[in-house]
C-alpha cells in the first residue's frame, strides 16, 4: 500500500515522503505525486523532468534491486530555489562506478535510465552498498 505525507517546516521548506510497494503500478503514483508537489511549490517548469528522473530511479529498483521489504522510499524537499529528491531501497546494490560514468551507446538495448537521470537533473549522487541504494538528485529553479 502506498503511504505518503506532506508537510512544511518552520523555515518554509516543503517535504513530501512516500513509501511505495515495489511494482510497476507504483511508478504512475510516484510520478503524479511528484508533479503535483513540484508544481504546488513553485517548480512547475521543472516538474516533468523531476518526475521522469524519479521514475527511472524507481524503475531501476523494480528491475534490479528486489528489496526484501518490497518497499521503495521517496523523499522530496523543495525550498526557495532547489528541489531535491532522494530515492532509497534496501535491495541488492550495484557497482556505481561501473554504471554512472560509462557511456551508453545510443542504440544499446538497455542502460538509459541513469543517463536520463543525469541529463534531466542538475546534480545526481548514487551510493550503493550491499544493504541497499540511495539516489539523491537536485534541480535548481530555472531563472
Amino acid at each position, binding site marked *: 500500500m502506498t503511504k505518503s505525507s506532506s508537510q512544511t517546516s518552520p523555515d518554509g521548506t516543503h517535504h513530501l515522503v512516500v513509501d511505495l510497494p515495489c511494482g510497476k503500478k507504483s511508478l504512475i503514483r510516484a510520478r503524479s505525486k511528484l508533479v503535483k508537489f513540484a508544481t504546488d511549490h513553485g517548480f512547475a517548469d521543472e516538474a516533468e523532468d523531476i518526475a521522469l528522473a524519479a521514475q527511472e530511479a524507481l524503475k531501476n529498483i523494480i528491475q534490479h534491486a528486489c528489496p526484501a521489504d518490497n518497499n521503495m522510499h521517496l523523499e522530496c524537499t523543495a525550498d526557495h530555489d532547489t528541489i531535491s529528491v532522494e530515492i532509497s531501497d534496501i535491495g541488492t546494490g550495484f557497482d556505481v562506478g561501473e554504471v554512472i560514468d560509462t557511456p551508453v551507446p545510443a542504440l544499446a*538495448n538497455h542502460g538509459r535510465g541513469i543517463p536520463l537521470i543525469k541529463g534531466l537533473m542538475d546534480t545526481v549522487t548514487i551510493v550503493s552498498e550491499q544493504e541497499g541504494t540511495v539516489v539523491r538528485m537536485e534541480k535548481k529553479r530555472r531563472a
Partner: protein
Amino acid sequence: MEIEVEEKEGYHIVSPVGELDIYTVPLFRKVVLKLEGDRRHDLILDLTRVTFIDSSGLGSLIEIFQKVQSVEGEIAYVVDNPRILKIFKLVDLDKVFPVFPNLGRALQDVGVTGGYVDEEFFSDLT
C-alpha cells in the same frame, strides 16, 4: 494508449496517442512488430501525439529501428514535442534516428508525396 495505423503507398504510418512508457510499450511493440504486408518494414512512427516517454519507450523505438535496419527497411520518426525531442537528445537518439518535425517532411524524405502538403514550406511563399 491508442495506436492509429495508416498505410500510404506501402508505408505504414504508426501514430501512438498518449504516454509511451513501461505501461504501454507492450501494446506498442505488439502492434508495430505484428504489422503485415510485403512492406511491413517500411515505417513512419508519428510521435506527435505522444505526451510522455521514458526509457522503456525509448527502448521500444530502438528495437523497432534495429529490426527495420536488419531487413533493410526504411524508417522515419516524426517528433514536434520539444519535451520528447529533449529526451531523444539526452541519449543521442536524435543523431541516430531520422527525425522530422512533421509528417509531410517525413513522407517527402521517404518518397511518398501524394496528398500531403508541407505547410511550413509553403508558408514562406505566401
